[in-house]
């Protein structure tokens, strides 16, 4: 895009870029080197031998998978309705949905706590999955509806003439055509669910249900403030996230460019 011709300006570009980016790398290096201080790799073997460790990963995986499934199903159906079907006062409903985008999850704590206790789902996955999905759906619907608006109505009209009902059109036309944005929604929801800290902190109380974001706290208790072990556990939790990002990088960037945030 920008013409850099001389070798000199090329070198300057590279140096300035490196100077800006290195501070972003340093905390990651500090994390890894801190985790290897003291007993070195021994920190990792100690952390990995903690019997509760797999439970945290399992819980996070279950919660993320359920949240993604719910968000995807609800969002795609909702966006189809908002984009292509007749609903009276559609805009009103849409605005009611979008208004929730601005709300921090902290403001929902007290009522959700009281409700979860009353419904007896406190310390179960549902107490986290349902509010998390509810908070993710509005943005996902916004993305998906904008994407679906780009699919020509003529296509649906043609299918309708051929005798396809709404369900068939949704299944055989909309879902395949919305795969790019669908993938982006899955990635966003995955990051949101996997990284969420507050809801699991409040609603899940022991290692049989807690998620990986509670791990550092758990290890602070477990290893009596031994910082090297805590950092080793942080590295172990960070690795799957980085691997997942590297694998899903394309869908993620495509989702962002698919007409979402412009």
């Amino acid at each position: 895009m920008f013409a850099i011709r001389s070798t000199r300006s090329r070198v300057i570009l590279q140096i300035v870029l490196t100077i800006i980016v290195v501070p972003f790398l340093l905390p990651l290096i500090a994390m890894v080197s801190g985790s290897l201080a003291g007993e070195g790799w021994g920190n990792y073997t100690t952390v990995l031998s903690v019997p509760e460790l797999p439970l945290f990963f399992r819980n996070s995986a279950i919660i993320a998978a359920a949240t993604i499934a719910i968000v995807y199903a609800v969002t795609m159906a909702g966006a189809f309705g908002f984009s292509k079907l007749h609903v009276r006062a559609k805009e009103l409903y849409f605005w009611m949905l979008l208004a929730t985008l601005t709300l921090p999850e902290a403001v929902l704590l007290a009522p959700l706590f009281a409700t979860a206790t009353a419904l007896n789902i406190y310390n179960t996955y549902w107490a986290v999955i349902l509010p998390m999905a509810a908070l993710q759906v509005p943005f996902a619907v916004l993305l998906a509806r904008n994407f679906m608006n780009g699919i020509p109505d003529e296509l649906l009209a043609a299918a309708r003439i051929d005798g396809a009902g709404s369900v068939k059109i949704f299944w055989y036309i909309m879902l395949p055509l919305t795969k790019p944005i669908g993938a982006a929604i899955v990635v966003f929801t995955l990051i949101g669910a996997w990284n969420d800290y507050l809801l699991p902190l409040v609603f899940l109380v022991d290692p049989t249900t807690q998620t990986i974001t509670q791990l550092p706290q758990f290890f602070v208790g477990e290893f009596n403030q031994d910082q090297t072990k805590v950092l080793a556990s942080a590295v172990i939790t960070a690795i799957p996230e980085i691997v997942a990002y590297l694998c899903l990088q394309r869908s993620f960037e495509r989702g962002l460019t698919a007409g979402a945030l412009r």
Partner: protein
Amino acid sequence: MTIASAPARRRAGKRGGLDRPAATGHRRSGFRPAGYAWILPALVLSVGLIYYSIGYTGYISTLSWNGTSPDPTQVGLHNFTQLFSDHVFWLAAQHTIISFVATFVIQTVLGVVLAVMLHSRPWAGVLYKIVLFVPVVLAPAITAPVFRQIFAANGPLNALLQHVGLGAIAVPWLAQPGTSLMAIIAISIWQWTGMTFILYYAAMGQIDPEVLEAAELDGAGNVRKLVSIVWPSLRGTTIALLTLSAIGSLKTFDIPWLVTVGGPDYSTEFFGTMIYRQSIILSQVGYGAAISVMVILLALVMGVAINVRPWRSRAAAGAS
């Protein structure tokens, strides 16, 4: 919040591989089957759960309640009068504004500069992109222990400062009220610049190369192109990011809670940490709900402000 405007929809259409001019979504094209059943699940889940919670919060905010006792006391608006005279609440408001302005300005500058540099085909550009974006996908809960260590009195940051002869400014960053908020802001910037960068990077990729070539033929240099062509065409992205950071600043919780627990002396208290402290730690659920009500009102005002924004039509015109 309609972040995407008409041009975005058009682009989305192109991306879907459909060559028709799109954006016919709102026009009635003959028979349209009813869609209530399709939008119902989304409405029940999100609107239902969230509006129910908001209503419930409003009710709880009039109580003096510890969260478990079966018969809470009605106190009317007492929680709110107490809140307005609570200096911690005003501190939280102040911190929210400071951190919103600081993170938005710094991230925008860094994001644009980095996007421009990485569009100039540097060597190993992909590696830089990955380093910038990894913090975005890592949970603050996972990175918080590292930052507690980095900013510690005898931590790596101060070691580095002493090493380069800046030992005089090496302070226990998180342990004194004057610097703790700066540290929290720095961590937010570390975490979210990758997001700003990637959005600007994507937006710059949408600029028609022919326009840039034409400008180049007319003798425009790199700076001129950046100021006159690139930056104006990023306007939509900047507004979207402004919106996202404003919302994000109201949601701040993870980083200050995990790194400094809102302290020392409430110097890094935000609305989120205050609500959590009052509702869960101190069991002042009624008071916590009153703070929540104020935050909901703020979010509402902000949402309205964003949507009646005078620049909306101009932005749409500028983007196309």
